[in-house]
């Protein structure tokens, strides 16, 4: 039965913010978080992309919804096992494995989620079958098929968890089933959703790459996108899109119908509150500050506005949904997660 035209009525309510900027040291806090995934036991894995000039901060951090910092793994910037160049995205597979793509080293690194042990890596740079150029988004379906957004080859490739090539689809272009620098991926309900970044749309495929639908067009209106970077899908098929260039999240129904847009409303995390507890002078001046000011007209792009308005999303690169319909938004430029609940 078609659900077309039926309003899903999806509404998201803000829950909380987790995070604080970590200035290059390891330990509690995030450094340009670029992706977030949540394990079945509720652990939140955060990919700290950071940058090579602050090499040691590149790592995966782990916390939980109660804002306890549980640890981290990954060995900073470098080409060695367990190290990263420019890590982009993560996916959880079966057997407690976490897969991390790296667009600089053109590979996938695999870690054990129970203790962070490095388990292996695969990937060869190139444009042939099974070769990758700037692997970005990664998704793993219930059958342990691994899908990779092969960014600079403008295609999706499908692998086994040990990196054996299975199939591919797509090429550079703006037609149905074509891509322009795809970024985020989600595998859900037998489908693969692609944040087709430079085409300003989300495309939906079957697991073998058959085109199903495309949602969105360039712009800042409802249902339009500017460089979407991440996509997540809940158990009911609702689609959550990190509308990166518009600095917002959009929620779509299963048929792609616009439901809601979120601009962000971050509050102080426990870690932030702890900071102000020992810096009362800053807290005092902050309390009388207007953190959502009106701005001069030349600061009118979403990006500029987000740089000025702290509660708003800024660099929302990735979204994920957990089993309880909580939405997690990783904000690269604000070093935090904003969490919403479907109500």
């Amino acid at each position, binding site marked *: 039965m078609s659900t077309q035209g039926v309003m899903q009525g999806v509404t998201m309510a803000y829950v909380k913010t987790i995070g604080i900027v970590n200035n290059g040291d390891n330990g509690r806090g995030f450094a340009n978080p670029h992706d977030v995934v949540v394990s079945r036991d509720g652990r939140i894995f955060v990919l700290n992309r950071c*940058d090579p000039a602050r090499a040691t901060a590149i790592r995966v951090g782990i916390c939980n919804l109660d804002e306890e910092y549980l640890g981290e793994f990954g060995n900073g910037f470098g080409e060695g096992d367990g190290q990263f160049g420019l890590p982009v995205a993560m996916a959880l597979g079966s057997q407690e494995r976490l897969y991390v793509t790296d667009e600089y080293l053109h590979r996938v690194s695999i870690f054990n989620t129970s203790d962070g042990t490095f388990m292996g890596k695969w990937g060869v740079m190139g444009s042939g079958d099974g070769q990758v150029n700037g692997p970005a988004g990664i998704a793993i379906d219930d059958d342990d098929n691994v899908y990779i957004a092969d960014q600079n080859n403008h295609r999706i490739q499908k692998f086994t968890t040990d990196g054996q090539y299975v199939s591919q689809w797509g090429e550079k272009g703006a037609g149905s089933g074509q891509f322009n620098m795809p970024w985020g991926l989600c595998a859900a309900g037998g489908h693969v959703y692609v944040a087709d970044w430079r085409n300003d749309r989300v495309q939906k495929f079957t697991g073998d790459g058959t085109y199903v639908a495309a949602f969105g067009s360039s712009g800042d209106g409802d249902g339009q996108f500017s460089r979407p970077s991440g996509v997540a899908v809940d158990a009911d098929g609702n689609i959550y899109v990190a509308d990166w260039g518009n600095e917002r999240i959009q929620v779509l129904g299963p048929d792609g119908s616009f439901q809601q847009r979120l601009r962000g409303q971050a509050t102080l995390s426990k870690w932030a509150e702890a900071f102000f507890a020992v810096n009362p002078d800053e807290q005092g001046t902050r309390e009388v500050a207007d953190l959502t*000011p009106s701005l001069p007209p030349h600061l009118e792009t979403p990006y500029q506005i987000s740089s000025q308005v702290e509660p708003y999303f800024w660099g929302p690169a990735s979204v994920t949904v957990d089993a309880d319909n909580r939405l997690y938004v990783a904000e690269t430029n604000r070093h935090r997660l904003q969490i919403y609940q479907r109500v």
Partner: protein
Amino acid sequence: MSNQDFALLAHLMRRAGFGATRDELEAYAAQGYTATVDELLNPGDPEVMPDDLIRRYHVDQSELRQLDGAGANWLYRMVTTRCPLEEKIALFWHGLFATGYSKLNQARALLNQIDMFRRHGLGRFDALLVELSKDPAMLLWLDNTDNHKGAINENYGRELLELFSMGIGNYTEEDIKECSRAFTGWTLGNAEYMAMRASKDSIWPYSRIAWHFQYRDWDHDEGQKTFLGETGNFNGEDIIGIIARQQATARFVSMRLFQFFAADDVDSDGEQVIEAMMQSYFDSGYEIRAALRTLFLSEYFMSEKARYARVKGPVELLVGAIRQAGSYRAPTLGVHQLAYQGFFMGQGLLQPPSVEGWHEGMEWIDSGSLVERVNFVAQELSSLDKPGVRAIIDRLAAENGGVLTPEQLVDQCLDLLGPVAVEDDTRTALVDFAAAGGGALNLSGHQPGDATEQRVSNVLRIIASTREYQLA
């Protein structure tokens, strides 16, 4: 097209831009000198490296929390722009209205200031000064956030007159006070919180919050003020209106433009050009564009006398070499090292040594900076994998069947790297060096990186090391 035409356009592009490749020079030559000047002065779409690609690849340049990423971000723009004067004039104002990271701890505010220079840097000087006076980085840099009704802070008022517009000797201490009174209430949004974060270099909890201008009318001194002999209830805009119509301002601005774009030293011929620029400044309603047009079309600027009359600033040198080599055309890991490179040569972008900016001319050169300058340029221009170097080799190989005597090899390389005009002694030494590589060079059938290409690379490397290449 004569070699003299190319030499003149190359000279213009070294001054109004960051040099030019032979392909670019040919395109400019086809439209002619005056049309090129007018195109430079009226920038269109710069077609710089797209911001989305930069921000996706370089998260540090998306957040712009750190100085190195911010400097690299500007360098990307300088390297890829098709409107080089837009960046060059921004660099000029950055040196004149020097605002630095060290006190602000806010790289984004500095880049926003640079962007303001792009928008207003070729337009009316009075409009530029109003924008400067509202610029968040400047407001904190020169303490106008502490300039209050009944309790003035003179820092901005003083530098506005001394360093930014008229120069010392053209106003009194009383004028400084009255000027400062007029700028009371010109501050930042959330000034107290932002000033505290800046002073503590605090990035917590969620990284830096960018700044914007705010006018607090309740903190503005509404009383009568007497400034440069005029009396009224002046606000900042009124003060700038008075400044802009001063003869001293026209002279100051024209002189600084001349020294940056024409020659480090001003002789009597240069003095005449400056007077003509001043006239253009007034005739046009204080347009910087008009003063510069007068300069670029002056006999003096177009004459041999103005050639190589300036020491390239480190950023000019760095960007010029990169543009010529054709590197950094796409987001590149490690680009932040370029920002450090400028610093090692004595010009760290967004961190001038003081409000007086950099000391230019021969002061760019000391033994340490010279080594950095020569090494960097030699490396860029001798790398056989760089697109710009490959283009030079392709042109050499296409001439005369690819067979070049040592003299031809040197002359062609000098030509394609500029044209660069060198002293006779220098040319002789270059030819001797090229000949030592083994007589005539035959590039027919050359392969990337082979011995013949290596000989070209060596000659390019040596030319990059000459005194003349260090001059603009």
